């Protein structure tokens, strides 16, 4: 396929010129940022059509990130469940251990191209922070990462990793000390520093062009998976599933499958249970609102104040969702499911024991839903699950639940 056709294909589902996906998305940003956002948008589009930029991006994805990541048929798990076949897209095998690096490579290169000497990022699970610190180290840029105090506690190894990579991790105490508060702080930093600083947003949210840009950088997940599926199984999956925090791993997997006859399912974090109100299921339990630069589904009270969320997994503990997912959901192209903390933990354990893979707690949500669905399906059907990251960062959390000593 020529570069140009690829460009067309990938860009087909563009937002409108203002970054809207239907009624969602947009550019709800402070005036100070409107200039920098326009500059970013122009730079992104120019770079996307620049063959040498794309070649360098693809080279790094291959030689540095370790792409393509394999597609692994979890036969032992599937057999244990006794229903549909579960196929895993192994983003856990990427450098730094989660899909997040696909995006930071892209934005990192773009920051280089734009001559920025400093990058900032928000992070929840710490994977995006690590992935940002990683490219900052590689491209010799200064790096500050905002992270909620509570998230720093539950994802301590990732804090260490960022520091060892030379980044500064700035604790965020306001709010609930989780991802949304880190995003607020990062935006505050950027408003003041946008001349010299590139803000590497970690998911398909934020003001335009971020949702588009991050989707494009992650689309490699679904593009690879699609081709690998055809090659390994001679067909496409019946269902494709991914967990949703902001939605980057979901968009990465699902967007390239959008025109196929495949059920697309996004799995939200049900925390202690949807009925408890303590969860992070923005689409299932939220309503449209405006936060962090875009209009999308939000968890908020009747006054529009953003609710505190809860999920055992820091990467899903966010009250919003990427606007394109909201649009796909509204358009009926996306199904929703959810998994509670407990269900995610059980899925973690099940995958560990049957396949020898420790998934990230985020990804465990997708797995939990996939297992449930698989059990209602037949063995000739196939569910593709995005294993968005590995569970090494979650060891403390999981051991605390299962108890050291007790066999997990």
């Amino acid at each position, binding site marked *: 396929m020529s570069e140009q056709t690829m460009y067309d294909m990938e860009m087909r589902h563009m937002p409108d010129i203002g970054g809207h996906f239907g009624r969602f998305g947009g550019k709800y940003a402070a005036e100070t940022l409107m200039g920098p956002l326009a500059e970013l948008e122009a730079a992104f589009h120019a770079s996307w059509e620049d063959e040498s930029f794309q070649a360098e991006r693809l080279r790094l994805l291959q030689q540095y990130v370790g792409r393509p990541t394999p597609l692994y048929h979890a036969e032992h798990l599937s057999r244990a469940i006794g229903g549909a076949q579960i196929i895993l897209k192994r983003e856990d095998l990427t450098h730094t251990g989660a899909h997040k690096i696909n995006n930071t490579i892209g934005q990192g290169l773009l920051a280089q191209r734009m001559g920025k000497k400093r990058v900032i990022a928000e992070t929840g699970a710490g994977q995006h922070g690590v992935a940002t610190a990683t490219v900052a180290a590689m491209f010799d840029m200064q790096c500050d990462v905002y992270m909620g105090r509570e998230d720093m506690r539950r994802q301590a190894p990732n804090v260490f990793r960022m520091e060892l990579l030379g980044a500064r991790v700035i604790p965020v105490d306001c709010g609930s000390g989780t991802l949304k508060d880190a995003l607020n702080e990062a935006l505050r930093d950027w408003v003041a520093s946008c001349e010299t600083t590139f803000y590497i947003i970690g998911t398909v949210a934020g003001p335009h062009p971020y949702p588009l840009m991050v989707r494009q950088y992650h689309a490699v997940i679904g593009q690879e998976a699609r081709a690998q599926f055809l090659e390994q199984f001679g067909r496409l999956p019946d269902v494709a599933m991914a967990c949703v925090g902001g939605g980057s791993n979901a968009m990465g997997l699902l967007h390239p499958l959008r025109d196929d006859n495949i059920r697309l399912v996004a799995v939200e974090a049900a925390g202690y249970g949807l009925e408890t109100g303590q969860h992070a299921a923005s689409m299932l339990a939220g309503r449209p609102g*405006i936060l962090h630069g875009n*209009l999308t589904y939000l968890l908020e009270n009747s006054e*529009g104040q953003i609710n505190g969320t809860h999920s055992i997994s820091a990467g899903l503990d966010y009250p919003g969702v990427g606007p394109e997912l909201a649009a796909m959901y509204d358009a009926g192209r996306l199904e929703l499911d959810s998994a509670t903390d407990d269900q995610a933990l059980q899925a973690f354990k099940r995958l560990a024991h049957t396949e020898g893979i420790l998934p990230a707690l985020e990804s465990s949500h997708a797995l939990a839903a996939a297992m449930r669905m698989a059990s209602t399906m037949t063995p000739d059907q196939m569910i593709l699950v995005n294993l968005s990251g590995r569970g090494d960062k979650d060891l403390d959390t999981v051991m605390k639940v299962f108890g050291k000593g007790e066999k997990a």
Partner: protein
Amino acid sequence: MSLDRLKNCFERCKSEQRAALVGYLTAGDPNPAASEKLLHVLAGHADILEIGMPFSDPMADGPTIQAASERSLEAGTKMHDVFHLCMTVRKARPEAGIVLMGYANIAYAMGYRQFADQAALAGADGVLIVDIPPEESGDLDAALLAHALHSIRLVAPTSSAARRELAAKTASGFIYYVSLTGITGAEMGSVADIRTQVESLHSQSGLPICVGFGIKTPEQAAAVAAFADGVVIGSHFVSCIADHAGDEPAMLAALDKTCAAMRKAMGNGGSV
């Protein structure tokens, strides 16, 4: 005198050869009752009041105004309290300019129409939503227009010529020039730069230009007042509340003193 109170405010100030004092407080901070008294104090000095609508995620604000939002929400402030406070001030100061300031989601959650209805009922003159740029402002503007409420626009140092044009074209009431790239409460930029920007804006638009973000000392206010139509003081006034937490009389006294000092520095020490 026109029906446009904001216009009247600026004209009155102009006639007094001084800049308007635009004072900000967050509604409901530290609680609705005290907030009412504080707003009255502010209204005793300011030409135009910016009444902040508290928001859980005030991402354009620095720590001082973030804390004000937190205190207010913590105290249970709801939007009907905000409108009620607005109305109280309006009743006490029929001639004052009042602008409701805040974040998009508060207005969106209520519905832009209902929001505009309530704002008008409460006696506000205009609305400034920090995270709704002109590009996204269509629906809100339509709702505001129905009540002849002004849609205030921000212009920032990073705004291109085209964006200034856009602001000039779509704004009403006044243009709010952000005197620094950063959040509220940070350090003000250089006065010379600000002057250049304001002069250029004056040449693009007939609207009054107010300058805000980071103005903390009477000296800064005086310097800006020399060329701007209005000077916005926010964090500096809000600090009076945090500095005297728990001691309402002291809080009120401090605010009164601070406002007076600002007003005095900006020329024409008399009451409005």
